[in-house]
C-alpha cells in the first residue's frame, strides 16, 4: 500500500473540510472540483477555490490522485481516492504508530507491549 505523507502531529491529520471532501469521494470515487463543490455547498458555506485547495492538499498528502480529463465541459481534473475508507484508516494507524516508535523508540515499544499485553490478558 502506498504510504500517506502526513504531518505526524496527529491532531492536524485532516481538517474538517478535508474530511467532508473525502466522505464524498469514497462512495462516488471519481469527481471533478466543481462537482464536489456543488455537493458540499448545501451543507456548508464553502468557496470553489477552497475546495480546489483542499483537493490539491489531499493530492500532495497522497490521499487522492488526479487525472486530466477532457469532457464536454472542457479540460478538468478528476480526483479519486487512492485508498478506500478501511485502507485509509489502517494507513493512518500505521503512520501514527511508526511515528511514535521513531520518536520515542524503545519506550513506545515497551508501552505498546505492556498496554496490549495487559488488554490481551484481560480479554483471556
Amino acid at each position, binding site marked *: 500500500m502506498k504510504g500517506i505523507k502526513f504531518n505526524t502531529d496527529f491532531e492536524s491529520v485532516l481538517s474538517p473540510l478535508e474530511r467532508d471532501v473525502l466522505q464524498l469521494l469514497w462512495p462516488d470515487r471519481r469527481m471533478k472540483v466543481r462537482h464536489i463543490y456543488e455537493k458540499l455547498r448545501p451543507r456548508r458555506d464553502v468557496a*470553489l*477555490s477552497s475546495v480546489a*485547495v483542499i483537493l490539491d492538499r489531499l493530492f500532495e498528502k497522497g490521499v487522492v490522485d*488526479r487525472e486530466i480529463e477532457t469532457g464536454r465541459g472542457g*479540460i*478538468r481534473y478528476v480526483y479519486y481516492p487512492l485508498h478506500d475508507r478501511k485502507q485509509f484508516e489502517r494507513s493512518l494507524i500505521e503512520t501514527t504508530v511508526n511515528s511514535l516508535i521513531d520518536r520515542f523508540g524503545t519506550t513506545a515499544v515497551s508501552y505498546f507491549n505492556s498496554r496490549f499485553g495487559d488488554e490481551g490478558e484481560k480479554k483471556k
Partner: protein
Amino acid sequence: MICNECAPLFFGDPVKIVIAVSSLAVALLTFLLILKRDLSYGVRVFLIYLHVFSLVFPFVFYLFFSGCSTLFSGCSKIVPVIYMLLITGVISAIIGSVCAPIVFMWRSSRCRLNDRGISRFVCRESGVAGIRPPSLFIVDSASPFAFSFSNIRPVIFVSVGLLDLLGRKELEAVLLHEIMHIRNGASIFRFSAFFMRVFSPLSMFASLGRELDEEELGADRYACLRQGTSRFVESAKRKIDLFFYWRKI
C-alpha cells in the same frame, strides 16, 4: 589588461577540472529535475535558468583561464571571477529566456488545449488585437495561473487549476488579458526589467515595478473593454486570490 604570470594549463590543473565537471554535474542534475512532473511553475523556471547557467559556465571559465594569461585582471583573481560570473549570467539569461518557453511547450505538448470554442475565441480576439493567433497549452498544475510568451511565436499557457476554477466568461477575460500581454511584448519587457534589476545599478532610479503594474492594469482594462464589463475580470481575480490565500493558511 593581461597578466603574464604563467599558471598551469586548464586541463593540467585539477582544481579547474573539478570546478568545470561539478558545474556540468549540476547541469545534469537540474535537467533531471526539470523532467519531474510535479514541479511548480516558479521552481521549473528557476531550474531552467540554473541548468543553462551551469552548462554555459565551464565554457566561459575555460575562455577566461585557459592559458598563461588571465584577461581583464592584472594578476588579481577576483576581477576575472566577477567578470566571468557576469558574462555567464548574461549569456544564460538570454538563452534561458528563449529556452523556458520551449521547455514549457515541450512539457505541455501532450496537453494542447483543443477546445474549439476557446480556440475560435482566441483566433478572433488575436485578429482584433492585431497579433498572430497564439497556440494554447495546458500546464498540469492545480494552482490557477496563466502566462504567455512571445519570444519565438505567441503562446499562451493555462493551468488545469485555472480551468477548474473559472467559468467560460472568466476564462475569456484571462485569455484577453494574455493577448494584450502578447501585443505589448510583455514577456520581453518583463525579462528586460528583471535583467536590469539584477545587473544594472541604475535600476534603482527606474520605476520598473510601477511600469509592470501599469502594463498589468492595461491588460485588465483591455479585457474589460472587450467584454463590455469588468465583472468577469474581477470575479476571476477574486477566485485566483482566494485560492492563493487558502493555500497560504
